[in-house]
């Protein structure tokens, strides 16, 4: 059904198929793959609230822990039991969404280059989640809790930093109580605080980070968790007995998957494996590295310090500060090149990027990309339009990270690929209309997604007049179409473009009196 471009690697293709399935089921707005971070946060909320409830009835002493959990599970199944199940299943669901989140960033090659920070900090965050789950299972103090405790002690013993033997003292009953109290403290306070800090670090280099999942997804997930909790309530193993080794364990594989390895391997080898995997994961952004283009540059002559670019930058790379030159403006902006992703979105944010300005000389704007300045964007738009020989002329803007638009070039269709369509100042669309385009067609990453996070969102808001710089009221919106497509969606994109061409041809025929359309004088902004 689709003509798939050969360059798309199989992992990415698999991911895009999954994404398509979810868009079909949930629509683009609710596609869970676009909200894996916020869904994880949502599950954390469920874990936190159910955890607080459990804490009220939980006996934090080793003697009473098991009985208190049993009491909640059986005597209070309708409340404590449900809370316990929610606590367990939401924790497991969070691991699923985190793994999907990793898979997505990997499949879409969004873990290297300027994204190294997010990936690098993500890996320990995952470990913090896993260890939080491990101490949770310890606290039930059933056979599984004992298993976790004994094997964790063995793991700790094999570290050179520890002197003495935790595992031995543990078996002798000398450490059991103290460790239990420590685990209670870690699970209830220490680890959650560490996790919050890790997540904060993880998203530190991003702006406009959403924390709440779309309501539809939150309600759906909560309902699903509730149904599961009622149908299959979480239960305990038999109570822990130091003199026994449980033969069969119902492990939670999301959290305890490493432990069975200790049956086959010495603890040092298990550490070696987990450490190597962790290091390898953390090094992935450099295996091999990905180059990020030169950072955006500020041109103070054209900047009045309005701060729109700083507001729009998806990677928090622009800051507003007091003016350093003697102009009459109060503020200016500064780009932190370390954090700049070279997305060009700030160019689209700046009102000075209006291509109707400086018609006869180089178009300078307040913030620009040195490798593809707005002046060149304007020049290439005009040149591409000038080359067209067809009857209905379409200007097609796309981006370097979605469907390849080069193959769509034709005598009727001029194409220009940008870093991101968020780079488009709305005036550029009007400018293309003015320079002979019967229609302007914009494509780019799939709706709901954006390689540079926010480009699509800002473009839509600018066109809808909800964000500066806004597409002007008088712009001919019927001659603009936005249709977004990933690399594997080229056939659909082609169809949509053909439909747009037909529509534009019809429009052209309707407005058969020449010179009445789009010829209004457009003043400098």
């Amino acid at each position, binding site marked *: 059904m689709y003509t798939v471009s050969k360059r798309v690697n199989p992992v990415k293709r698999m991911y895009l198929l999954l994404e398509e399935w*979810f868009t079909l*089921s*949930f629509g683009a707005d609710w596609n869970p793959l676009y909200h894996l971070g916020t869904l994880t946060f949502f599950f954390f909320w469920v874990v936190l609230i159910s955890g607080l409830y459990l804490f009220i009835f939980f006996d934090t002493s080793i003697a009473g822990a098991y009985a208190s959990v049993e009491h909640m599970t059986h005597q209070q199944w309708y409340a404590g039991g449900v809370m316990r199940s929610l606590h367990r299943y939401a924790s497991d669901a969070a691991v699923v969404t985190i793994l999907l989140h990793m898979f997505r960033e990997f499949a879409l090659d969004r873990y290297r280059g300027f994204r190294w920070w997010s990936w690098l900090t993500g890996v320990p965050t995952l470990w913090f989640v896993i260890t939080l789950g491990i101490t949770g299972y310890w606290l039930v103090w059933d056979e599984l809790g004992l*298993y976790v405790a004994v094997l964790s002690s063995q793991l700790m013993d094999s570290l050179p930093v520890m002197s003495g033997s935790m595992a031995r003292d543990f078996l002798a009953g000398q450490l059991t109580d103290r460790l239990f109290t420590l685990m209670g403290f870690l699970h209830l306070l220490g680890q959650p605080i560490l996790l919050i800090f890790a997540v904060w670090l993880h998203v530190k280099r991003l702006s406009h980070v959403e924390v709440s999942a779309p309501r539809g997804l939150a309600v759906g997930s909560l309902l*699903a968790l509730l149904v599961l909790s009622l149908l299959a309530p979480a239960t305990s193993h038999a109570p822990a007995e130091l003199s026994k080794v*449980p*033969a069969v364990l119902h492990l939670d594989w999301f959290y305890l998957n490493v432990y069975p390895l200790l049956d086959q391997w010495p603890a040092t080898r298990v550490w070696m494996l987990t450490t190597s995997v962790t290091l390898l994961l953390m090094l992935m952004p450099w295996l091999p590295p990905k180059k990020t283009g030169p950072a955006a540059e500020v041109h103070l002559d054209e900047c009045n310090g309005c701060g729109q670019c700083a507001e729009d930058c998806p990677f928090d790379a622009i800051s507003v500060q007091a003016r350093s030159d003697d102009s009459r403006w109060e503020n200016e902006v500064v780009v932190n090149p370390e954090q700049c992703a070279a997305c060009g979105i700030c160019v689209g944010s700046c009102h000075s990027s209006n291509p109707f300005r400086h018609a006869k000389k180089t178009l300078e704007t307040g913030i620009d990309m040195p490798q593809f300045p707005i002046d060149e964007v304007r020049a290439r738009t005009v040149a591409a339009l000038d080359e067209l020989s067809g009857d209905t002329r379409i200007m097609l803007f796309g981006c370097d990270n979605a469907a390849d638009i080069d193959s769509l070039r034709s005598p009727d269709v001029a194409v220009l690929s940008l870093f991101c369509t968020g780079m488009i100042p709305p005036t550029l669309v009007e400018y293309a209309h003015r320079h002979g385009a019967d229609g302007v067609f914009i494509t780019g990453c799939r709706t709901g997604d954006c390689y540079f996070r926010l480009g699509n969102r800002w473009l839509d808001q600018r066109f809808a007049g909800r964000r500066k710089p806004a597409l002007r009221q008088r712009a001919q919106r019927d001659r603009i179409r936005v249709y977004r497509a990933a690399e594997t969606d080229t056939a659909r994109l082609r169809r949509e473009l053909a439909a747009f061409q037909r529509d534009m041809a019809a429009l052209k025929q309707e407005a058969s009196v020449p010179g009445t359309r789009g010829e209004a004088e457009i003043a400098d902004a």
Partner: protein
Amino acid sequence: MHKILRYPLQALNYTLFMLLVWYFSAAPPYAQLQPDQAVITVAFSHAGERREECRQLSREELEKLPPNMRAPMDCPRERSPVKVQLLLDGELLLEEVARAPGLYSDLGVDIYRTAKVPAGKHTLSVQMNDNMRVEGPTYTHEQTVTLEPAQLLVVNFNSETGSFIIQ
């Protein structure tokens, strides 16, 4: 797709998601032990004997030393490795040779080893050598034990009394 049609698809997705969560939250079960197995854990700490005997220093030797270090006995700090063997019904079940840790190999060792054995009645013998200057075991102990399935039997050693405790 029409919004109404999406709801059954969403329900399907949630169901699959929850099935995944439910299944791996407690399955597949992990059998640590066969139903008729028990576990023996050897766990104790013990400091081996010194590798070399202490030696009375001669007068000449003492005079060569700075006055504040003139101890009449020279006791090298290095300790012997501790070698433990556990035999079940006469067959070797576990063997561990633990070197004395520490910068000068002068600290006690921690032994922690585990083995799975068939439940039932067994003769268990432990042999330990903690002195390089002695051939063969310096401590031995033999005991008949009856192991229930899933029982954990701990073999301990009390350095003060020099005796093994099996319980």
